[in-house]
């Protein structure tokens, strides 16, 4: 369990524009976001000595970004092999590294040309070796195809409906309409959702997140260090990373997972809340990993905001709107702001807790949840102002 409650803070945030075609390299995107995070904190990059990122072979090495930034000695430079599960993990790991004396301040970034460059959702021609010999020959290849299988199981078990999925898409787009950085800002209705074409049933186009070029970064320091910097610190209360049994080698190999109607959240929730010393009812705003509409429902159940099977009615009730009991994805999420693999969720939580979210600000937001992951493993943090 993460045992560093309130000892570490996010002192700075930075990001590039989110676009379909950045027109520049992933390295340049990473450097821009990291430089902005350092500037936002008021920490000269020369004083930064740690940098950590995550990737699917679609990014640049952390040490390369440190070099380009002119960091003289990045003694702690780590690349984590992972995707949507990792956004909070790298931030928690940054705190752990500082606690262990490996660094004093750590940049955490994610950078990608996810639309103009390496498209994660694309299928590829290949010989199906290893674990993929049992999955790809049947035409089961893309991320939406993988997640749709989980969604269908939830429908079988609990009767979850298309309209319930649609309420997630409509709500997050409404939030994005207030976010000048969001790639998709045009409001949609439930009719628009129902009319959007099926990509892989039960998923329509509007159930599936964007593909984006962009980068974002946060700077983690000790809390007492952060208190001397430019912004009010956002404290890391608690966090957790992990999943359940039989995760397999990849998201298709997860066929041995015990119950596809519940994901990693159910397995890490106890650790998360215990580490933070608060519970679901204390959360003022939550930024939930939404690579698909459905992943939100599974996480709300797993983290204890509602009971298993009640996620569909919960999202359809209006509870997740800005004026509801649990405002979600106030920036529009991966569905409507951008797909920066969940690190953009952490930035939005920081803005909400600083009171800097402009027209999207949730009044008196003091405690925020950020999550990352959709299937067998993931990570989450509880942050506070």
């Amino acid at each position, binding site marked *: 369990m993460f045992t560093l409650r309130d000892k570490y803070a996010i002192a700075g945030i930075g990001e590039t524009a989110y676009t379909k075609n950045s027109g520049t390299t992933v390295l340049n995107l990473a450097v821009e976001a990291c430089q902005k995070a350092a500037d936002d904190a008021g920490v000269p990059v020369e004083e930064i000595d740690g940098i950590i990122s995550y990737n699917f072979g679609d990014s640049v090495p952390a040490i390369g970004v440190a070099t380009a930034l002119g960091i003289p000695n990045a003694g702690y430079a780590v690349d984590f092999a992972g995707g949507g599960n990792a956004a909070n993990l790298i931030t928690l790991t940054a705190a752990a590294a500082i606690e262990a004396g490996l660094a004093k301040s750590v940049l955490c970034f994610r950078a990608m040309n996810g639309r103009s460059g390496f498209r994660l*959702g*694309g*299928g*590829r*021609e*290949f*010989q*199906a*070796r*290893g*674990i*993929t*010999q*049992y*999955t*790809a*020959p*049947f*035409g*089961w*290849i*893309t991320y939406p*195809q993988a997640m*749709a*299988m*989980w969604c*269908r*199981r939830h*429908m*079988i078990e609990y009767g979850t409906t298309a309209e319930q999925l649609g309420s997630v898409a409509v709500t997050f787009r409404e939030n994005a309409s207030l976010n000048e950085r969001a790639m998709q800002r045009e409001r949609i209705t439930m009719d628009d959702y129902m009319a959007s*074409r*099926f*990509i*892989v*049933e*039960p998923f329509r186009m509007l159930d599936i997140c964007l593909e984006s070029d962009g980068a974002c970064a946060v700077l983690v320091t000790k809390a007492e260090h952060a208190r001397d910097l430019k912004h009010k610190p956002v404290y890391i209360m608690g966090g957790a990373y992990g999943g359940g049994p039989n995760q397999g080698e990849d998201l*298709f*190999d997860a*066929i*041995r997972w015990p119950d*596809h109607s519940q994901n990693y959240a159910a397995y890490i929730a106890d650790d998360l809340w215990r580490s933070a010393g608060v519970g679901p009812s204390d959360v003022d705003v939550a930024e939930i990993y939404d690579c698909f509409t459905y992943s939100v429902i599974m996480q709300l159940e797993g983290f204890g905001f509602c009971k298993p099977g009640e996620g569909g009615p919960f999202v359809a009730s209006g509870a997740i709107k800005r004026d509801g009991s649990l405002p979600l994805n106030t920036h529009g999420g991966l569905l409507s702001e951008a797909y920066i693999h969940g690190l953009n969720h952490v930035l939005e939580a920081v803005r909400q807790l600083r009171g800097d979210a402009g027209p999207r600000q949730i009044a008196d937001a003091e405690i925020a949840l950020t999550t990352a992951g959709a299937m067998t493993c993931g990570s989450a943090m509880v942050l506070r102002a």
Partner: protein
Amino acid sequence: MNDFSKPVPVADSDSAPFWEGCRAHRLMIQRCGSCKTPRFPPMRTCPKCHSTETEWFKASGRGTVYSWIVVQHPVPREVYGQDVPYVVALIDLEEGVRMVSNIIGLDPHAISGNMPVEVTFEEGQGGVVLPKFKPREA
């Protein structure tokens, strides 16, 4: 359509009996030689008792639909464009293992959760024979 651009399963030291079985229209499943627990995919060591004794048996071919999807948007289009809509499903075999396959021989929208199915073998490209599933009487 150029069938050969589809992912071709490449057998390895663990999976060879599975794919050889498919070519003979037999659904072969591995189990632990010690504790007899069936497992899929095949591998050398039993995750339950850690024995490396393995044996193979012919499964009944009967199972139920744990979950399924209907692929409407082909990715990539040049490979799957003529196949859509097609169904990918997770099949729970009655022997207690789960596998990925396609359900064929019925309207995709006639599929329901936990529906009974049975194996059938389909010749694919390059001499590969894939185990697929069709509806059966319960």
